[in-house]
């Protein structure tokens, strides 16, 4: 990306860009010099990938944490999507009860902090139903992001022109088929970009599950730091890993969008 950026811009822009980089590097070097911080980057790769006694490559603690973060995020993402879809349909349905249930869920989730929801599920609900921390984490994340996803999906559904419903109905299609073949396919195409934003939020928010004794990426970073005091190196690395994940999701969806576009 940087390469393309430099190639395409004028020399003046390149100079501005180099100046900007220079300032950033100077600030970091100066501040670390002031703190007398002893950078030990060479120790970081061992926490990503290391060798066992017999020489085989084994994942380091950061990578193991990352795997768990990915697992939690993917499962929560799928669940959040379905929760969001069902909640959106509930809110748009003509049933008073369905609307009420959706409304209460949305207000509860959107007006309380995620951390508190996580604690309530982990400390209050999970002992009652005997569910493990992993499931508590997935439940909390998908309920939280599902609420936001539902508002995005609902917005997408209401943006479908009335004429689409009318022509579907006038062909004799029932409500379920109209949603399934006419409304939802068009909605999903419209809401894919904002839903991606929500997926990125979910991955970032998943860092909070480290508070309920789950060894995700954040928790792995924390534990390494408490043993080694590599505070800067590890946090920078952890942040970079999150960044790579979220940016690649956005890029992937962007490509997907471009490929499956029909002209309207």
């Amino acid at each position, binding site marked *: 990306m940087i390469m393309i950026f430099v190639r395409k811009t004028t020399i003046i822009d390149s100079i501005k860009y180099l100046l900007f980089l220079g300032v950033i590097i100077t600030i970091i070097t100066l501040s670390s010099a002031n703190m007398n911080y002893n950078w030990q980057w060479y120790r970081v790769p061992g926490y990503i990938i290391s060798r066992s006694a017999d020489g085989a490559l084994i994942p380091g603690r950061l990578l193991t944490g990352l795997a768990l973060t990915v697992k939690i995020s993917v499962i929560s993402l799928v669940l959040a999507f379905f929760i969001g879809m069902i909640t959106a349909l509930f809110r748009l349905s003509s049933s008073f009860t369905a609307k009420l249930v959706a409304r209460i869920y949305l207000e509860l989730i959107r007006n309380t902090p995620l951390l508190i929801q996580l604690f309530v599920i982990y400390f209050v609900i999970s002992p009652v139903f005997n569910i493990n921390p992993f499931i508590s984490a997935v439940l909390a994340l998908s309920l939280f992001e599902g609420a936001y996803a539902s508002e995005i999906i609902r917005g997408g559904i209401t943006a479908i*022109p009335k*004429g*689409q419903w*009318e*022509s*579907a*109905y*006038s*062909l*004799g*299609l*029932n409500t379920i*088929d109209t949603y399934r*073949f*006419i409304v939802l*396919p*068009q909605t999903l*195409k419209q809401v894919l970009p904002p839903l991606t934003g929500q997926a990125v939020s979910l991955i970032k928010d998943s860092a909070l599950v480290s508070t309920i004794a789950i060894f995700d990426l954040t928790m792995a970073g924390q534990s390494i730091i408490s043993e080694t005091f590599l505070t800067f190196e590890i946090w920078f690395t952890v942040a970079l890993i999150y960044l790579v994940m979220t940016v690649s999701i956005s890029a992937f969806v962007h490509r997907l969008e471009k490929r499956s576009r*029909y*002209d*309207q």
Partner: protein
Amino acid sequence: MTSKPIISITDLNKTFPGSNKDLEVIAVKDVTVDIYQGEVVVVIGPSGAGKSTLLRCLNGLEDFDSGSIIIDNIPLNHHHKNRLEIRKEVGMVFQSFNLFPHMTVRENISLAVRRVRKKSLAECETITVDLLEKVGITDKIDSYPSQLSGGQQQRVAIARSLAMNPKVMLFDEATSALDPVMISEVLDVMKNLAKDGMTMVVVTHEMGFAREAGSRILFMDNGEIVEDRKVEDFFLDPNEDRSKAFLSKVI
């Protein structure tokens, strides 16, 4: 004409509520009319006369306040099943085409045949090809609506409705969004349909179509049917002042 009407409307009333009594709009007022098989009923009148609302009541896109509508012996009431049953038998073509933009022409036409009429894939394909031939756009079967002109889109929309093999076709200002060349392509398709004996209720401003293909004129004003006459009688000798005034403006 058969003795029993295919559409029977009795004392139909429809008011659009406003925030207060003064803002209420009476769209359809005490409309009673019977339509028989094979008739091409052309509904005309000034804008705001309630023509489209009357049409939209006929397939339950609009609810009515009082009165009754019976189509093909099925009363259109709060029973959802009746409504679906009537919609199977009543096709509708809209001013804005309303094709499904994410589907090809083939998919647009065959969706309801497959889902509602439960025909096999092979039957759907035959129906689709036949109807595209009928409306004269066989080469666009794999195109998306956005790749078609307005006139082509409207002809696909007509084919889509016909695919359900309806007993009645409703046209709601089907040519109002088109330019003159496209208007005539769509009108030709409609005239052929009329010739084939399709029962049609057509809301339009095309007086030429009304004269040529229509069998009956309903002239509406302020929600009421002012005149219900045979086409030739209406154009030669309108009874009411309101119809005379309207005709003098549009012809």
